[in-house]
């Protein structure tokens, strides 16, 4: 049985962010005893003071996509940027969990799409923006073009006492992390105590969510064997274009909605995977809000977070439909 304080390192509180997810991370910096020692240790290791902060996860913008599930292109992505900038508290970080662009075999066109992504994302008022690739960014060329624009596809960094790990499970063209990256992950985490707060961000789910829809990572179990030995791990991912919450041992997995179109609930679904059709009267439908909040006093074995998913049109734009949504100022 674990001590509750080990699981409460992070207070993750949601807010009404139009598209995407806002996390407020409040490490229990004032905690005494074992947890306090752990944060002191992290502070020494990271050279950073442990302090509350917030960050945003955005996913699956698919810049360059043009098709019936969303004829509006980058509108939702641009909307998300506006809403982030309207937040009362500027987020410390923005994490993009892959599929920044839509794939094409034309390298010049793909370069243009990556440039367009950067032009939109650079308007975000946040000091740090980090990315991982999705298969539509990196699956056709092994991630070569992605790395030209965004740098390495797997890496780690520390922020205010939390260790962030970017994992690439797309650049090998298959849904896998690979032995080399796995060895890197083990080495990267080796310096941290078992209680260290760790946030992993990646594109595909690291567990078998729906393998016949390619919603899995084939060597995800190997990754979980590494992460599972730590007490406080949160995995943020995209790919599935819908929210999802899952738990494997100590590890909590959260999928973010897309910025382009949604996929349906896979439960009981048969046949090919088809996007949810575009609703011209509710253009942001299913590209919604996720409120994430801390459970207060978590009990051993319970999730440290609770999730409330709210459809964008139901709350942010109640009574305002269709194109009028574009005219409304972001109200976060």
């Amino acid at each position, binding site marked *: 049985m674990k001590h509750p304080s080990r699981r409460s390192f992070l207070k993750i509180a949601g807010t009404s962010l139009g598209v995407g997810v806002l996390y407020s991370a409040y490490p229990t910096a004032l905690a005494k005893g074992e947890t306090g020692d752990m944060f002191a240790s992290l502070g020494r290791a990271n050279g950073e003071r442990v302090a509350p902060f917030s960050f945003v996860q955005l996913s699956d913008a698919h810049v360059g996509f043009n098709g019936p599930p969303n004829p509006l292109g980058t509108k939702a992505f641009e909307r998300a940027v506006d809403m982030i900038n309207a937040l009362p508290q500027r987020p410390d970080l923005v994490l993009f969990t892959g599929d920044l662009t*839509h794939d094409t075999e034309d390298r010049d066109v793909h370069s243009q799409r990556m440039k367009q992504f950067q032009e939109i994302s650079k308007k975000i008022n946040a000091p740090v923006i980090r990315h991982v690739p999705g298969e539509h960014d990196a699956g056709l060329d092994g991630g070569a073009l992605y790395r030209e624009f965004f740098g390495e596809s797997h890496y780690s960094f520390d922020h205010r006492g939390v260790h962030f790990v970017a994992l690439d499970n797309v650049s090998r063209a298959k849904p896998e992390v690979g032995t080399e990256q796995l060895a890197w992950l083990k080495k990267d985490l080796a310096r941290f105590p078992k209680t260290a707060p760790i946030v992993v961000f990646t594109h595909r789910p690291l567990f078998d969510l729906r393998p016949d829809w390619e919603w899995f990572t084939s060597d995800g179990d190997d990754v979980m064997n590494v992460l599972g030995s730590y007490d406080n791990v949160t995995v943020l991912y995209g790919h599935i274009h819908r929210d999802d919450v899952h738990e494997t041992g100590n590890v909590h997995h959260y999928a973010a909605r897309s910025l382009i179109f949604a996929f349906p609930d896979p439960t009981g679904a048969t046949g090919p995977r088809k996007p949810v059709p575009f609703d011209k009267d509710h253009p942001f439908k299913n590209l919604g809000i996720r409120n994430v909040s801390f459970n207060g006093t978590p009990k051993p074995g319970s999730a440290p977070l609770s999730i409330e998913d709210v459809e964008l049109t139901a709350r942010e734009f109640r009574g305002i439909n269709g194109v009028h949504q574009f005219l409304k100022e972001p109200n976060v």
Partner: protein
Amino acid sequence: MTRNKRTRITLPILLCLALIAAMSSGISRAHADDVPVVEITAKRFAFSPDKITLKKGQTVKLRLHSEDVTHGFFLRPLKLDEEIPAGHTAEVVVTPQTAGTFTTICDHFCGANHGNMNMTIVVE
């Protein structure tokens, strides 16, 4: 009609029918080891045929051919995880041990509609 005449007429017909059946099911016999061979073609963004039926406990060889780019052939319950190099053929021998209907996917990203490139394997 004499017995010989009937044999001369029916034998070729039976052979033709057997050949047609084998071609339509995608299953033929390998010469060397006498293992049934199933021919499967991968081409953006579909497998052909899109459904095959195998027998539980019976060993078959899957001959996988790509007509364009590199594809994958992944089905965890049957322990299938093959790469089909662009324009080439890969072979894998499998003995299904579990009856059921399974979806095999291309797990090597091959383009925009890759996510729905799959086929059905029925094990009876």
